[in-house]
């Protein structure tokens, strides 16, 4: 009985507290519903406005990168006048007499070069006969363990007349053999697969992959590129080193202006 009374009084205290807490809770709601119209809308408006401004700044910044590369009219002024290696090295894709020359110093294992592969392909498809691509090897051997092998594979395929077919396969399947976190430990096997896919003579291909002459040809590109390249890819457009990485739109704009000026 005593125990019952005790627990009953405890219950009473507890219920009293619950009631007080509840009324406090609901009162606070009252307070907010009354003041909602004045004290909540303004901060909310401010937050929305701030996000819009932040978005605007972000969009401006994201365009800035490609704008710095120059609206085509200023490209000549902003580009540094680094002497361009004389032609002869590198592989040329597209009409040899195309009015516009785009030189790329690329590393087959660099993700950015991989991103640019479809951009340049698209550009060349859009303007057939107007742009030629001169691709130079610039494998960053220190950080990209399979880049050299990829360059050798492309050159070896080139010996059998399928350089660009191999070039495309290598870039399109970059993740297969060149994932930077998990580079394929045996890239030669992957490239041999590609060679078979392209119908190349596998013996000749492997011989060439391992021949010092092929390696020398790749290294000759690197030697030439050393004067120009600050990172991969480096683009040289009509003799001007592009200080930044342009977008497809920028390229299209440039080509349109160039072609209009030539007419």
């Amino acid at each position, binding site marked *: 009985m005593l125990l019952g009374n005790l627990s009953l009084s405890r219950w009473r205290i507890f219920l009293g*507290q619950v009631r*007080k*807490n509840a009324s*406090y809770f609901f009162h606070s709601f009252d307070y907010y519903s009354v003041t909602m119209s004045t*004290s909540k809308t*303004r*901060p909310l408006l*401010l*937050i929305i406005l*701030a*996000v819009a401004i*932040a*978005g605007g*700044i*972000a*969009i401006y*910044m*994201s365009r800035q*990168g490609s704008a710095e590369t120059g609206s085509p009219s200023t490209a000549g002024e902003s580009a540094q006048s680094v002497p361009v290696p004389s032609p002869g090295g590198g592989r040329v894709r597209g009409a040899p007499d195309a009015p516009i020359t785009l030189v790329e110093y690329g590393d087959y294992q*660099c*993700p*950015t070069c991989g*991103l*640019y592969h479809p951009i340049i392909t698209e550009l060349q498809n859009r303007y057939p006969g107007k742009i030629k691509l001169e691709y130079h090897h610039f494998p960053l051997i220190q*950080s990209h363990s399979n880049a050299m092998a990829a360059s050798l594979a492309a050159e070896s395929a080139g010996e059998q007349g399928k350089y660009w077919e191999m070039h495309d396969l290598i870039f399109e399947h970059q993740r297969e053999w060149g994932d*930077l*976190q998990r580079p394929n430990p045996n890239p030669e096997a992957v490239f041999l697969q590609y060679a078979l896919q392209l119908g190349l003579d596998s013996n000749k291909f492997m011989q060439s992959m391992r021949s010092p002459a092929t390696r020398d040809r790749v290294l000759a590109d690197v030697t030439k590129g050393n004067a120009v390249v600050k*990172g991969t890819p480096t683009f040289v457009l009509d003799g001007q080193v592009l200080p*930044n*990485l342009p*977008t497809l739109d920028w390229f299209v704009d440039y080509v349109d202006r160039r072609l209009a000026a030539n007419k």
Partner: protein
Amino acid sequence: MRSRALALILLSFLGLVDTLYLGIKRGKPVPCTITNGCEEVLNSRFSAIAGIPISWFGFAFYLTVFSAAVFASFGDSRLLNLIFWPALAGFLISIALVGVQAFILHAYCQYCLVSAILVTLILIASPKPKRISTIPEQAQ
């Protein structure tokens, strides 16, 4: 409290710009001016959780901090008083992400490092948690 809120507003606003920028640039080449390896970091397998880029999680975080600080500057600091906990979580996640850049990818992305610094400053500026009493009498 006011200066604290203003500092948090400024820091989280910078965070909003940073994360929105990375959100817009997702899948496109990002100019890497100070550090080397933005592409490696932003395209790595650590750059998204369940297909959602980490930058959008960052955006949600900064938006929460920003909202809390704006409400606090209008006199309602209930949300801001709780912001310490998400800030602590964000700080720990940032440490992990910087660790991934340093020890796994061996590449750094300046925008990610800026975000890590912002989160750290937000943690420092956020009000430290107090014991919360639910019984109003104690406050009297």
